[in-house]
């Protein structure tokens, strides 16, 4: 049975728009113009209990909007979703008690007082038995190295320190479903690593289901076997991270080591040369033509060594993100861009 199931989920925002300037400002007082923005255009996916899934896409793709609907913050415009059997936007107390949403740009800790006091508030809000609360807190203090931070007012903590305390606050009640929206945003590379290790450990220990969005590919590759890629509100890919490049990047990298360096220029006839270092040449070859191209290379040139690789996953995802920054391209445009 799915822990999270999402069916044709949609969200449309009604946005007030007007031209710049005083005239337009006065005009908008009497004539309001609204436009509808489709943030999520009917996504469908599901997660098994204990799964950790990377939710990827460029800015404005609809990732955060989807997470907000799944955590009950937003009411959808269409479609359906169930999280542990609950309809999230009904906001049942039992549902809210069993989830957590961590947003890198938003905090739940009270700014002016030590984090420890906010933790006590969460103990009461989530009805955590005293013994379990102490045990979980001790565990979180040890894993996240919080002992020196608990008594400082939150406003005096660095961004990384605050993020660690935010994570602890979000996990004190041991949520079974964890929505992580950019949990390592703005945090230095060492802290990113610690937070990643901690999330992996939490998933292992408690069997929690995790959906993670991050612009740092290292977060995704370290934590997620499966990724869901969303772009302009539509699902682009749902499957193994390792096979993402098969779908998104329709090319392979062929590295040829030639016996005679003089024949290197001829390699350009077999594909797009990406790199050339003496007798070593790297080629980009359309995925469908890989076998035929390799056969031709071996028969027509004096090859001492040859390897075929998928493009690095970071490169593939970054291409998807990069395309998303420009004007609305269609899915086919994204694939074409990645291939180029």
């Amino acid at each position, binding site marked *: 049975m799915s822990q999270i199931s999402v069916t044709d989920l949609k969200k449309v925002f009604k946005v007030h728009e007007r031209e710049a300037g005083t005239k337009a400002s006065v005009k908008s007082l009497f004539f309001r113009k609204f436009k509808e923005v489709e943030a999520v255009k009917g996504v469908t996916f599901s997660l098994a209990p204990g799964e950790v899934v990377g939710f990827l896409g460029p800015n404005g793709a609809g990732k955060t909007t989807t997470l907000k609907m799944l955590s*009950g913050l937003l009411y959808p415009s269409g479609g359906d979703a169930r999280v542990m059997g609950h309809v999230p936007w009904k906001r049942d107390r039992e549902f809210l008690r*069993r989830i957590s949403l961590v947003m890198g740009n*938003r905090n739940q800790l009270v700014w002016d007082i030590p984090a420890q006091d906010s933790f006590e508030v969460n103990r*009461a*809000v989530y009805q955590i038995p005293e013994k379990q609360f102490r045990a979980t807190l001790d565990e979180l203090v040890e894993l996240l190295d919080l002992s020196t931070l608990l008594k400082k007012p939150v406003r005096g903590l660095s961004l990384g320190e605050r993020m660690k305390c935010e994570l602890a606050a979000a996990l004190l009640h041991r949520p079974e479903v964890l929505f992580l929206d950019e949990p390592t945003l703005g945090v230095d590379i060492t802290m990113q690593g610690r937070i990643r290790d901690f999330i992996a450990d939490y998933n292992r220990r408690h069997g929690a289901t995790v959906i993670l969005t991050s612009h740092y590919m290292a977060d995704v590759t370290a934590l997620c076997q499966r990724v869901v890629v969303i772009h302009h509100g539509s699902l682009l890919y749902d499957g193994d991270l390792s096979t993402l490049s098969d779908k998104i990047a329709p090319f392979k990298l062929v590295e040829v080591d030639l016996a005679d360096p003089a024949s290197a220029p001829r390699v350009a006839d077999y594909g797009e040369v990406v790199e050339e270092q003496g007798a070593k040449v790297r080629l980009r070859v359309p995925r469908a033509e890989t076998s035929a191209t390799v056969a031709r290379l071996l028969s027509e040139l004096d090859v001492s060594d040859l390897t075929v690789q998928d493009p690095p996953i970071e490169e593939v995802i970054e291409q998807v993100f990069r395309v998303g920054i420009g004007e609305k391209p269609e899915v086919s445009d994204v694939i074409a861009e990645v291939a180029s």
Partner: protein
Amino acid sequence: MTEHVPPPTQMSYGPRYFLDNYREQLKVGMAVMLQYRFAVLIWGVWGFVGPLVSLAVWTAVAGSGIVSNGATSFNRAEFSAYFLVFMVFGHVTMSWDAFEYGMRVRNGALSPHLLKPLEPIHRDAAQNISFKVVTSSMLIPVWILLWILLKPAPPVSLEQALLSIPSLALAAVMRYVWQYALACLAFWTTRVEAVNQLWFAVDSFLGGRVAPLALLPGWLGTLAYFSPFRSMGSFPVELALGRVPPDQVLPGFLLQLAWLAGGILVFRVIWAAGIRQYSAVGA
């Protein structure tokens, strides 16, 4: 997965749950208030200023005589007593969520509170109580000094003075719920502060902050009597001073209960609809 989370047990959300939460939220609220004691003191004094201005005006009008509308009258000492009690009761019943809610909805600061199984109104109510606890300790000496200086008329009925305590509690809860319902209009209009200003103006007038309601002319007095503003403003003050006719005490309480029930209903409806409207922008 080396360990598995056991199936969740159904939690109880009874009175103990709320007591525990109010206690924790009060501790936090007071800790935060004490961080900004000067600003909090100014806010507290602000609540005193309105009745103090009215007191100054009406004692000047009364001079050494009385102000009467034929049916009832107030002399200088009675005006002093009325507005001095109003100062304290007004402080106990004050609420400011409608001033802040627009911002919280606009910048998404509401989101972390919506993700918890405790509805935000309880956290906000606890903060409201902490404000009153902290500021009362600062304002009570000021109030005692004013009482000594202005020599107000003493209460005329001990029985009514005692009844003013439950009435004040009802008024505080009622005003809080109505103000919170008003604050929730922020889900539709991002400038709910303007609506609240209008509410405050009407409340000041029909609630007895500007003048004792007994001095209002006929039809206006009747309107004020049945409005929620008397129930959450003037009624407990009138009781404390023993100015409510004995046969009007029970109807006064019933009106308070009716407006409280109405407020809870209105809040529930606006909240349920507003949450569907929330766009969680910025967070």
